[in-house]
Protein backbone atom coordinates (compact mmCIF):
# COMPACT_ATOMS: atom_id res chain seq x y z
CA UNK A 1 0.00 0.00 0.00
CA UNK A 2 1.30 3.48 -0.73
CA UNK A 3 2.35 4.65 2.71
CA UNK A 4 0.36 7.43 4.32
CA UNK A 5 3.20 9.59 5.52
CA UNK A 6 1.01 12.39 6.80
CA UNK A 7 0.15 12.46 10.46
CA UNK A 8 -3.35 11.12 9.96
CA UNK A 9 -4.63 11.86 13.45
CA UNK A 10 -3.56 15.49 13.29
CA UNK A 11 -5.06 15.78 9.83
CA UNK A 12 -8.35 14.29 10.94
CA UNK A 13 -8.51 16.69 13.89
CA UNK A 14 -8.20 19.56 11.44
CA UNK A 15 -10.93 18.00 9.27
CA UNK A 16 -13.15 17.77 12.36
CA UNK A 17 -12.78 21.54 12.74
CA UNK A 18 -13.98 22.07 9.17
CA UNK A 19 -10.56 22.55 7.54
CA UNK A 20 -11.16 21.90 3.84
CA UNK A 21 -7.47 21.98 2.93
CA UNK A 22 -6.85 19.20 5.46
CA UNK A 23 -9.74 17.24 3.98
CA UNK A 24 -8.25 17.64 0.52
CA UNK A 25 -4.91 16.24 1.78
CA UNK A 26 -6.66 13.35 3.51
CA UNK A 27 -8.74 12.64 0.41
CA UNK A 28 -5.67 12.59 -1.81
CA UNK A 29 -3.87 10.24 0.59
CA UNK A 30 -6.73 7.76 0.85
CA UNK A 31 -8.47 7.93 -2.52
CA UNK A 32 -6.15 5.60 -4.41
CA UNK A 33 -5.87 2.76 -1.85
CA UNK A 34 -9.59 2.99 -1.04
CA UNK A 35 -10.56 2.92 -4.71
CA UNK A 36 -8.33 -0.09 -5.37
CA UNK A 37 -9.73 -1.94 -2.37
CA UNK A 38 -13.29 -1.21 -3.43
CA UNK A 39 -12.67 -2.23 -7.04
CA UNK A 40 -11.33 -5.55 -5.73
CA UNK A 41 -14.46 -6.00 -3.64
CA UNK A 42 -17.25 -4.84 -5.95
CA UNK A 43 -15.47 -5.49 -9.28
CA UNK A 44 -17.01 -2.40 -10.85
CA UNK A 45 -15.01 0.82 -11.23
CA UNK A 46 -18.03 3.15 -11.45
CA UNK A 47 -19.49 1.67 -8.30
CA UNK A 48 -16.12 1.75 -6.54
CA UNK A 49 -15.79 5.44 -7.46
CA UNK A 50 -19.19 6.29 -5.98
CA UNK A 51 -18.38 4.29 -2.87
CA UNK A 52 -15.00 5.99 -2.45
CA UNK A 53 -16.66 9.40 -2.58
CA UNK A 54 -19.38 8.24 -0.18
CA UNK A 55 -16.74 7.00 2.27
CA UNK A 56 -14.83 10.28 2.17
CA UNK A 57 -18.03 12.27 2.66
CA UNK A 58 -18.75 10.13 5.71
CA UNK A 59 -15.19 10.74 6.94
CA UNK A 60 -15.90 14.48 6.78
CA UNK A 61 -19.16 14.08 8.66
CA UNK A 62 -17.79 11.62 11.22
CA UNK A 63 -14.38 13.21 11.88
CA UNK A 64 -15.67 14.87 15.06
CA UNK A 65 -16.79 11.51 16.40
CA UNK A 66 -13.46 9.76 15.77
CA UNK A 67 -12.10 8.92 19.21
CA UNK A 68 -8.62 7.84 18.19
CA UNK A 69 -8.98 4.32 19.61
CA UNK A 70 -7.98 2.86 16.25
CA UNK A 71 -5.74 4.09 13.47
CA UNK A 72 -7.32 6.53 11.03
CA UNK A 73 -6.51 4.07 8.24
CA UNK A 74 -8.41 1.15 9.79
CA UNK A 75 -11.32 3.46 10.62
CA UNK A 76 -11.58 4.73 7.04
CA UNK A 77 -11.18 1.26 5.53
CA UNK A 78 -13.76 -0.07 7.99
CA UNK A 79 -16.30 2.45 6.67
CA UNK A 80 -15.40 1.41 3.11
CA UNK A 81 -15.70 -2.29 3.87
CA UNK A 82 -19.13 -1.95 5.44
CA UNK A 83 -20.44 0.20 2.62
CA UNK A 84 -19.20 -2.31 0.04
CA UNK A 85 -20.64 -5.26 1.96
CA UNK A 86 -24.02 -3.50 2.27
CA UNK A 87 -24.01 -2.84 -1.46
CA UNK A 88 -23.05 -6.42 -2.32
CA UNK A 89 -25.77 -7.75 -0.02
CA UNK A 90 -28.29 -5.55 -1.78
CA UNK A 91 -27.03 -7.02 -5.04
CA UNK A 92 -27.31 -10.46 -3.42
CA UNK A 93 -23.65 -11.21 -4.05
CA UNK A 94 -22.81 -11.80 -0.43
CA UNK A 95 -24.42 -14.38 1.82
CA UNK A 96 -25.33 -13.36 5.37
CA UNK A 97 -24.11 -16.68 6.71
CA UNK A 98 -20.38 -17.02 7.43
CA UNK A 99 -20.37 -20.78 6.65
CA UNK A 100 -21.95 -20.12 3.28
CA UNK A 101 -19.35 -17.43 2.60
CA UNK A 102 -16.63 -20.04 3.15
CA UNK A 103 -17.99 -22.21 0.39
CA UNK A 104 -18.84 -19.66 -2.24
CA UNK A 105 -17.00 -19.41 -5.49
CA UNK A 106 -17.88 -16.33 -7.45
CA UNK A 107 -19.18 -16.28 -11.01
CA UNK A 108 -16.35 -14.32 -12.60
CA UNK A 109 -15.23 -15.44 -16.07
CA UNK A 110 -13.50 -18.79 -16.24
CA UNK A 111 -9.76 -18.11 -15.84
CA UNK A 112 -8.97 -20.86 -18.33
CA UNK A 113 -10.54 -18.72 -21.03
CA UNK A 114 -8.67 -15.67 -19.79
CA UNK A 115 -5.34 -17.42 -19.71
CA UNK A 116 -5.34 -19.40 -22.90
CA UNK A 117 -2.46 -17.20 -23.96
CA UNK A 118 -1.57 -15.82 -20.58
CA UNK A 119 0.88 -16.63 -17.86
CA UNK A 120 0.56 -18.06 -14.37
CA UNK A 121 0.04 -14.68 -12.73
CA UNK A 122 -2.83 -13.82 -15.02
CA UNK A 123 -4.34 -17.18 -14.24
CA UNK A 124 -3.88 -16.54 -10.53
CA UNK A 125 -5.58 -13.17 -10.91
CA UNK A 126 -8.48 -14.79 -12.71
CA UNK A 127 -8.83 -17.27 -9.89
CA UNK A 128 -8.70 -14.50 -7.29
CA UNK A 129 -11.64 -12.86 -9.02
CA UNK A 130 -13.63 -16.01 -8.48
CA UNK A 131 -13.25 -15.98 -4.71
CA UNK A 132 -16.03 -14.58 -2.54
CA UNK A 133 -15.85 -10.85 -1.67
CA UNK A 134 -14.95 -11.64 1.97
CA UNK A 135 -12.01 -13.75 0.81
CA UNK A 136 -10.93 -11.15 -1.73
CA UNK A 137 -11.05 -8.53 1.03
CA UNK A 138 -8.67 -10.47 3.30
CA UNK A 139 -6.24 -11.17 0.46
CA UNK A 140 -6.26 -7.54 -0.75
CA UNK A 141 -5.82 -6.08 2.74
CA UNK A 142 -3.00 -8.53 3.49
CA UNK A 143 -1.01 -8.29 0.30
CA UNK A 144 -1.77 -4.90 -1.16
CA UNK A 145 -2.58 -2.76 1.83
CA UNK A 146 0.02 -4.51 3.97
CA UNK A 147 -2.20 -4.78 7.01
CA UNK A 148 -1.73 -7.05 10.01
CA UNK A 149 -4.25 -9.67 11.11
CA UNK A 150 -5.41 -7.37 13.91
CA UNK A 151 -5.93 -4.41 11.57
CA UNK A 152 -7.87 -6.55 9.10
CA UNK A 153 -10.04 -7.87 11.95
CA UNK A 154 -10.88 -4.27 12.88
CA UNK A 155 -11.74 -3.35 9.31
CA UNK A 156 -13.94 -6.34 8.52
CA UNK A 157 -15.29 -6.31 12.08
CA UNK A 158 -14.62 -9.90 13.08
CA UNK A 159 -12.29 -11.79 15.46
CA UNK A 160 -8.66 -12.28 14.43
CA UNK A 161 -9.25 -16.06 14.28
CA UNK A 162 -11.92 -15.45 11.62
CA UNK A 163 -9.44 -13.48 9.52
CA UNK A 164 -7.05 -16.43 9.64
CA UNK A 165 -9.89 -18.82 8.81
CA UNK A 166 -10.95 -16.72 5.85
CA UNK A 167 -7.39 -16.68 4.56
CA UNK A 168 -7.16 -20.44 5.07
CA UNK A 169 -10.33 -21.02 3.05
CA UNK A 170 -9.24 -18.54 0.39
CA UNK A 171 -6.00 -20.52 -0.05
CA UNK A 172 -7.95 -23.76 -0.10
CA UNK A 173 -10.36 -22.41 -2.71
CA UNK A 174 -7.47 -21.14 -4.83
CA UNK A 175 -5.78 -24.53 -4.61
CA UNK A 176 -9.04 -26.20 -5.65
CA UNK A 177 -9.53 -23.80 -8.53
CA UNK A 178 -5.94 -24.34 -9.65
CA UNK A 179 -6.66 -28.06 -9.62
CA UNK A 180 -9.72 -27.46 -11.84
CA UNK A 181 -7.49 -25.68 -14.32
CA UNK A 182 -5.18 -28.67 -14.42
CA UNK A 183 -2.45 -27.20 -12.23
CA UNK A 184 -1.73 -29.58 -9.36
CA UNK A 185 0.78 -29.90 -6.56
CA UNK A 186 0.79 -26.16 -5.82
CA UNK A 187 0.61 -25.32 -2.12
CA UNK A 188 -0.94 -21.95 -1.40
Amino acid at each position, binding site marked *: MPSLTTDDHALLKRVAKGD*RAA*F*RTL*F*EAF*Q*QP*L*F*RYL*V*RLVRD*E*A*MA*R*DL*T*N*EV*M*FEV*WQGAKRFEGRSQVRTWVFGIAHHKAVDLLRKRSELPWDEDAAMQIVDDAPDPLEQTAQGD*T*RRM*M*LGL*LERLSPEHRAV*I*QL*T*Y*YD*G*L*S*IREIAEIVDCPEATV*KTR*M*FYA*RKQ*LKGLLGETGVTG*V*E*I
Partner: protein
Amino acid sequence: MTHNHEADAPRSEAEALLPWYAAGTLSEAERALVERALAEDPALRDELAVLRDLGETVRESSDRIAAPAGDVDRVLGRIELAERTAKIEREMRGSLMERIVEGLRLAFAPPMARALATAAALAIVVQTVVIVGLVSDQNGGGYQMATAPAVEQVLGKRLIVSFSEAASVAAVNDLLQDLGARVVDGPNADGIYVIELTNPGADLDAAIADLRGRGDLVRFVAGAPQ
Protein backbone atom coordinates in the same frame (compact mmCIF):
# COMPACT_ATOMS: atom_id res chain seq x y z
CA MET B 1 1.15 -45.46 15.58
CA THR B 2 -0.06 -42.37 17.41
CA HIS B 3 -0.08 -38.95 15.81
CA ASN B 4 1.77 -36.23 17.67
CA HIS B 5 -0.76 -33.34 17.66
CA GLU B 6 1.38 -31.21 20.00
CA ALA B 7 4.25 -31.32 17.54
CA ASP B 8 1.83 -30.33 14.71
CA ALA B 9 0.49 -27.26 16.54
CA PRO B 10 3.43 -24.90 15.84
CA ARG B 11 3.53 -26.09 12.21
CA SER B 12 -0.18 -25.49 11.84
CA GLU B 13 0.09 -22.03 13.44
CA ALA B 14 3.08 -21.20 11.24
CA GLU B 15 1.11 -22.26 8.17
CA ALA B 16 -1.81 -20.02 9.19
CA LEU B 17 0.55 -17.07 9.68
CA LEU B 18 2.47 -17.67 6.46
CA PRO B 19 0.54 -15.13 4.29
CA TRP B 20 1.33 -12.33 6.76
CA TYR B 21 4.93 -13.54 6.98
CA ALA B 22 5.10 -13.20 3.21
CA ALA B 23 3.57 -9.72 3.50
CA GLY B 24 5.98 -8.74 6.30
CA THR B 25 3.34 -7.73 8.86
CA LEU B 26 3.92 -10.22 11.71
CA SER B 27 5.13 -9.39 15.20
CA GLU B 28 8.67 -10.42 16.13
CA ALA B 29 7.46 -13.46 18.11
CA GLU B 30 5.18 -14.63 15.29
CA ARG B 31 7.95 -14.15 12.76
CA ALA B 32 10.33 -16.25 14.88
CA LEU B 33 7.71 -19.02 15.11
CA VAL B 34 7.28 -19.08 11.32
CA GLU B 35 11.04 -19.03 10.71
CA ARG B 36 11.58 -22.00 13.02
CA ALA B 37 8.93 -23.96 11.11
CA LEU B 38 10.37 -22.90 7.75
CA ALA B 39 13.84 -24.09 8.74
CA GLU B 40 12.48 -27.57 9.37
CA ASP B 41 9.88 -27.93 6.63
CA PRO B 42 10.72 -27.73 2.91
CA ALA B 43 7.00 -27.96 1.96
CA LEU B 44 6.34 -24.82 3.96
CA ARG B 45 9.16 -23.05 2.12
CA ASP B 46 7.56 -24.02 -1.22
CA GLU B 47 4.25 -22.70 0.04
CA LEU B 48 5.90 -19.43 1.03
CA ALA B 49 7.28 -19.02 -2.50
CA VAL B 50 3.78 -19.43 -3.97
CA LEU B 51 2.30 -16.99 -1.44
CA ARG B 52 4.94 -14.41 -2.35
CA ASP B 53 4.00 -14.86 -5.99
CA LEU B 54 0.34 -14.40 -5.08
CA GLY B 55 1.24 -11.20 -3.21
CA GLU B 56 3.16 -9.91 -6.22
CA THR B 57 0.16 -10.69 -8.46
CA VAL B 58 -2.19 -8.76 -6.17
CA ARG B 59 0.17 -5.78 -5.98
CA GLU B 60 0.80 -5.64 -9.74
CA SER B 61 -2.86 -5.89 -10.64
CA SER B 62 -3.88 -3.29 -8.05
CA ASP B 63 -1.20 -0.85 -9.15
CA ARG B 64 -2.78 -0.84 -12.60
CA ILE B 65 -6.07 0.50 -11.19
CA ALA B 66 -6.11 4.30 -11.13
CA ALA B 67 -8.65 6.38 -9.22
CA PRO B 68 -10.35 9.10 -11.29
CA ALA B 69 -9.05 12.64 -10.96
CA GLY B 70 -11.09 15.57 -9.69
CA ASP B 71 -13.35 13.70 -7.31
CA VAL B 72 -12.14 15.67 -4.30
CA ASP B 73 -13.87 18.75 -5.77
CA ARG B 74 -17.08 16.79 -6.24
CA VAL B 75 -17.05 15.73 -2.60
CA LEU B 76 -16.15 19.25 -1.43
CA GLY B 77 -19.05 20.55 -3.52
CA ARG B 78 -21.35 18.09 -1.85
CA ILE B 79 -20.06 19.17 1.55
CA GLU B 80 -20.77 22.82 0.69
CA LEU B 81 -24.33 21.99 -0.32
CA ALA B 82 -24.97 19.79 2.71
CA GLU B 83 -23.69 22.44 5.10
CA ARG B 84 -25.65 25.17 3.38
CA THR B 85 -28.85 23.13 3.54
CA ALA B 86 -28.27 22.31 7.21
CA LYS B 87 -27.67 25.98 7.97
CA ILE B 88 -30.88 27.08 6.26
CA GLU B 89 -32.82 24.40 8.09
CA ARG B 90 -31.29 25.46 11.43
CA GLU B 91 -32.13 29.09 10.76
CA MET B 92 -35.68 28.17 9.79
CA ARG B 93 -36.13 26.08 12.90
CA GLY B 94 -34.72 28.87 15.09
CA SER B 95 -36.98 31.42 13.49
CA LEU B 96 -39.98 29.14 13.80
CA MET B 97 -39.30 28.50 17.49
CA GLU B 98 -39.06 32.22 18.21
CA ARG B 99 -42.36 32.81 16.44
CA ILE B 100 -44.05 29.97 18.31
CA VAL B 101 -42.85 31.30 21.68
CA GLU B 102 -44.09 34.74 20.69
CA GLY B 103 -47.39 33.19 19.62
CA LEU B 104 -47.78 31.43 22.96
CA ARG B 105 -47.06 34.68 24.77
CA LEU B 106 -49.71 36.42 22.72
CA ALA B 107 -52.15 33.60 23.36
CA PHE B 108 -52.68 35.15 26.73
CA ALA B 109 -53.25 38.59 25.18
CA PRO B 110 -56.65 40.16 24.27
CA PRO B 111 -58.69 38.33 21.53
CA MET B 112 -57.79 40.63 18.61
CA ALA B 113 -54.03 40.32 19.19
CA ARG B 114 -54.45 36.53 19.61
CA ALA B 115 -56.13 36.22 16.21
CA LEU B 116 -53.34 38.18 14.53
CA ALA B 117 -50.66 36.05 16.21
CA THR B 118 -52.34 32.82 15.12
CA ALA B 119 -52.49 34.00 11.51
CA ALA B 120 -48.80 34.99 11.61
CA ALA B 121 -47.77 31.63 13.11
CA LEU B 122 -49.71 29.76 10.42
CA ALA B 123 -48.02 31.81 7.71
CA ILE B 124 -44.57 30.97 9.15
CA VAL B 125 -45.36 27.26 9.28
CA VAL B 126 -46.51 27.26 5.66
CA GLN B 127 -43.45 29.30 4.60
CA THR B 128 -41.10 26.89 6.42
CA VAL B 129 -42.63 23.83 4.81
CA VAL B 130 -42.35 25.39 1.36
CA ILE B 131 -38.74 26.60 1.78
CA VAL B 132 -37.43 23.40 3.38
CA GLY B 133 -39.18 21.47 0.63
CA LEU B 134 -37.49 23.60 -2.02
CA VAL B 135 -34.06 23.13 -0.46
CA SER B 136 -34.67 19.44 -0.18
CA ASP B 137 -35.77 19.22 -3.82
CA GLN B 138 -32.79 21.23 -4.94
CA ASN B 139 -30.48 18.67 -3.39
CA GLY B 140 -32.38 15.78 -4.82
CA GLY B 141 -33.76 14.88 -1.39
CA GLY B 142 -30.28 13.88 -0.23
CA TYR B 143 -27.12 12.93 -2.10
CA GLN B 144 -27.47 10.76 -5.13
CA MET B 145 -24.68 8.66 -6.58
CA ALA B 146 -23.05 10.06 -9.70
CA THR B 147 -24.63 7.30 -11.72
CA ALA B 148 -28.22 8.19 -10.73
CA PRO B 149 -29.92 9.60 -13.85
CA ALA B 150 -33.04 11.10 -12.24
CA VAL B 151 -31.21 13.90 -10.43
CA GLU B 152 -29.43 15.05 -13.56
CA GLN B 153 -32.72 15.47 -15.34
CA VAL B 154 -34.00 17.72 -12.58
CA LEU B 155 -30.86 19.73 -11.86
CA GLY B 156 -29.08 20.13 -15.18
CA LYS B 157 -25.35 20.90 -14.91
CA ARG B 158 -24.68 22.95 -11.83
CA LEU B 159 -21.64 24.30 -10.10
CA ILE B 160 -20.93 25.90 -6.77
CA VAL B 161 -18.97 29.11 -7.08
CA SER B 162 -17.57 31.71 -4.74
CA PHE B 163 -16.38 34.97 -6.31
CA SER B 164 -13.48 37.03 -5.04
CA GLU B 165 -14.30 40.14 -3.04
CA ALA B 166 -12.70 42.36 -5.67
CA ALA B 167 -14.96 41.02 -8.45
CA SER B 168 -17.46 43.62 -9.67
CA VAL B 169 -21.04 42.70 -10.54
CA ALA B 170 -20.41 43.66 -14.18
CA ALA B 171 -17.30 41.47 -14.40
CA VAL B 172 -19.16 38.51 -12.90
CA ASN B 173 -22.07 39.02 -15.28
CA ASP B 174 -19.70 39.10 -18.25
CA LEU B 175 -17.96 35.95 -17.01
CA LEU B 176 -21.26 34.07 -16.64
CA GLN B 177 -22.42 35.25 -20.04
CA ASP B 178 -19.19 34.06 -21.68
CA LEU B 179 -19.56 30.74 -19.92
CA GLY B 180 -23.22 30.34 -20.86
CA ALA B 181 -24.29 30.12 -17.24
CA ARG B 182 -26.81 31.74 -14.93
CA VAL B 183 -27.13 32.06 -11.17
CA VAL B 184 -29.88 29.81 -9.85
CA ASP B 185 -29.28 30.33 -6.14
CA GLY B 186 -27.25 32.28 -3.62
CA PRO B 187 -25.37 33.88 -2.29
CA ASN B 188 -25.54 32.19 1.11
CA ALA B 189 -23.94 33.70 4.20
CA ASP B 190 -20.54 32.43 3.01
CA GLY B 191 -20.93 34.04 -0.42
CA ILE B 192 -21.53 30.72 -2.24
CA TYR B 193 -23.61 30.78 -5.44
CA VAL B 194 -25.13 27.89 -7.35
CA ILE B 195 -24.85 28.44 -11.09
CA GLU B 196 -26.27 26.40 -13.94
CA LEU B 197 -24.87 25.88 -17.43
CA THR B 198 -27.69 26.87 -19.76
CA ASN B 199 -26.50 24.84 -22.74
CA PRO B 200 -27.56 21.20 -22.20
CA GLY B 201 -24.50 19.99 -24.13
CA ALA B 202 -22.05 22.06 -22.08
CA ASP B 203 -19.00 20.32 -20.68
CA LEU B 204 -19.01 20.59 -16.89
CA ASP B 205 -15.30 19.83 -16.46
CA ALA B 206 -14.38 22.41 -19.11
CA ALA B 207 -16.55 25.02 -17.35
CA ILE B 208 -14.83 24.25 -14.03
CA ALA B 209 -11.44 24.58 -15.74
CA ASP B 210 -12.49 27.92 -17.29
CA LEU B 211 -13.61 29.29 -13.96
CA ARG B 212 -10.44 28.09 -12.24
CA GLY B 213 -8.51 29.95 -14.90
CA ARG B 214 -10.20 33.17 -13.74
CA GLY B 215 -8.50 33.41 -10.34
CA ASP B 216 -8.97 37.21 -10.52
CA LEU B 217 -12.74 36.74 -10.17
CA VAL B 218 -13.31 33.23 -8.83
CA ARG B 219 -12.21 32.14 -5.37
CA PHE B 220 -13.68 28.61 -5.36
CA VAL B 221 -15.49 26.40 -7.85
CA ALA B 222 -16.69 22.80 -7.72
CA GLY B 223 -19.22 20.66 -9.49
CA ALA B 224 -22.47 20.33 -7.57
CA PRO B 225 -23.75 16.75 -7.19
CA GLN B 226 -25.29 16.09 -10.60
